[in-house]
């Protein structure tokens, strides 16, 4: 996984609440056996009509947001299924950070496995960031994971919280399985103990 550097880019506003994983990547695209290439189908049913033409009103189709790297979204973003195709599509599009008042649990975890930083902010801060994102491509936001600060195009700074371990993994681009394997002796020991205590498992 790539290291998560300081991000300075365009933020797209999506104020709708409860944007679910079926909206992010509809099920017809879950039939792939690969992780790549899903960016073109991100938000497919909102982004294209049935003939495959772009719907001009949709935010990521607007010229100023086509290269967005940040998404400012309504509450409970990513609710629904566990499909990692959702963060795969987001990452493949080029979005590296999503900011909302809350995220669904599985989606939130899936983001970190794919180099995406989900940031939870209170409603009043999301309102400010949403308004900043509405300004379009001349207004670039900065996301500094190292120092845990989001800065608006006008220089307003908002600190955010992130789990220290998840932050470390994102900053260093670490592979989870590799990390866990470093503790394989503990897993061996647990299994040995359980084969005595709960042999039916």
């Amino acid at each position, binding site marked *: 996984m790539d290291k998560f550097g300081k991000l300075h880019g365009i933020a797209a506003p999506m104020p709708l609440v409860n944007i679910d994983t079926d909206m992010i990547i509809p099920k017809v695209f879950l039939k792939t056996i690969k992780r790549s290439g899903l960016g073109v189908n991100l938000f497919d049913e909102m982004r294209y009509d049935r003939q495959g033409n772009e719907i001009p009103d949709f935010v990521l189709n607007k010229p100023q947001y086509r290269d967005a790297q940040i998404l400012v979204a309504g509450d409970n973003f990513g609710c629904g299924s566990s499909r*990692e195709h959702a963060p795969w599509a987001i990452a493949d599009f080029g979005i590296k950070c999503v900011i909302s008042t809350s995220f669904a649990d599985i989606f939130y975890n899936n983001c970190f496995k794919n180099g995406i930083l989900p940031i939870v902010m209170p409603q009043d801060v999301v309102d400010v960031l949403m308004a900043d994102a509405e300004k379009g491509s001349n207004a670039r936001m900065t996301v500094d994971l190292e120092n845990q600060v989001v800065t608006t195009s006008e220089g307003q700074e908002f600190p955010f919280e992130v789990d220290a371990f998840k932050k470390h993994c994102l900053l260093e681009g670490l592979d989870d399985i590799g990390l866990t394997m470093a503790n394989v002796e503990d897993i061996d020991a647990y299994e040995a103990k359980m084969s005595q205590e709960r*042999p039916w*498992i």
Partner: protein
Amino acid sequence: MTAPKTLYDKIWDAHVAHEQEDGTCLLYIDRHLVHEVTSPQAFEGLRMAGRKVRAPEKTIAVPDHNVPTTLDRVSGVIANEESRIQVEALDKNAKEFGVNYYPVSDVRQGIVHIVGPEQGWTLPGMTVVCGDSHTATHGAFGALAHGIGTSEVEHVLATQTLIQKKSKNMKVEITGKLRPGVTAKDITLAVIGETGTAGGTGYVIEYCGEAIRDLSMEGRMTVCNMAIEGGARAGLIAPDETTFEYVKGRPHAPKGAQFEAALAWWKTLYTDEGAHFDKVVTLKGEEIEPVVTWGTSPEDVLPISAVVPDPESFKGGKVEAAKRAIEYMGLKAGQKLTDIEIDTVFIGSCTNGRIEDLRAAAEILKGKKIKDGVRAMVVPGSGLVRAQAEEEGLADIFQEAGFEWRLAGCSMCLAMNPDQLAEGERCASTSNRNFEGRQGYKGRTHLVSPAMAAAAALTGKLTDVRELI
């Protein structure tokens, strides 16, 4: 003396294989369920890294999302090429990595969350994961069960653990008795209506109270299944005699002395008196009515006696969301829910595809015919549910009423196979999600219980099942 613990605390503590100073843990996974949609990239990852499945004997795979449910599938060929490739990939991966497998041709095949409990893979006190959000279903056994993404599927395959931090504890109590016509599905939808789809975010829910205790295992699975729709990581119900009775004798449940040893441990799995919950929600069982969803989020729940709400009655971002939902659903604020005409009825899914669900629907349909022009189908949750329903005469009731009697799979719950709504079609569905496009592009979904779905099939409208019993 140790501090009183919740059921979640106890299961969590029993599975920590390693803990970092910051509280990040390696949680040992007892059962890993696998299906064809969220696993191919994970197996490919193992292959690329030269890794094996650490515990193939604890890994259970079954194709369910893509499989056709029409009777001609016995020929073994899936027409849709992409679907076929996914199912074939699972066939190949299951064989290559040596995991337990129920292929399409096996009578025990079905929806992974129905097969697991049915075969006795799911047991009290276990940790159960699957690359599927409805893994929450298994919480009905007092097992800590939740969905994971594909990267985590690969992680569990390789290490049999998951990197986790503990969630908070939430208690949802349903007091008293349910009224006639009210089912487990109405309970779980009513809870989401109360808490919202983000109300459980960051929590593991324990469902308790008399109305929960009174439920069968099938009903408890329905309740826990939709914990994820309330945003919770998992839903749990403490195991009791109902649980032990269900588990005993299942193919992969412990036998003889091992069963007795397991039972002794299972009986310790309850929330201690005085244990702390970070959030508590209480509903009165007798006040829950048969419910239906009107919008495109599972939190858009109302009693069947209500009307489509006015978007302006909501607050914040929900105003716009409600406007969008009402437009998408082709409804009008103030319209009576019982005036909404449907053209499709779907009975099935991991929420309501078990034998008890089929019995409840058949009870309403017995000796009657569905409304002309309504397309109705029953998709049993597993081949064994289907066989049992045939033995009990339920299949005859459905078919005589005008339902299609299908083979097992996820089917129209998420419409990855050919079972889909056409644009603008409206469905009374026993599944779990009413999202835009969930059952087909521009399809419209109303979530209901099996009995309510049967009632809608008879009248061609959303109907209060209490008028038919």
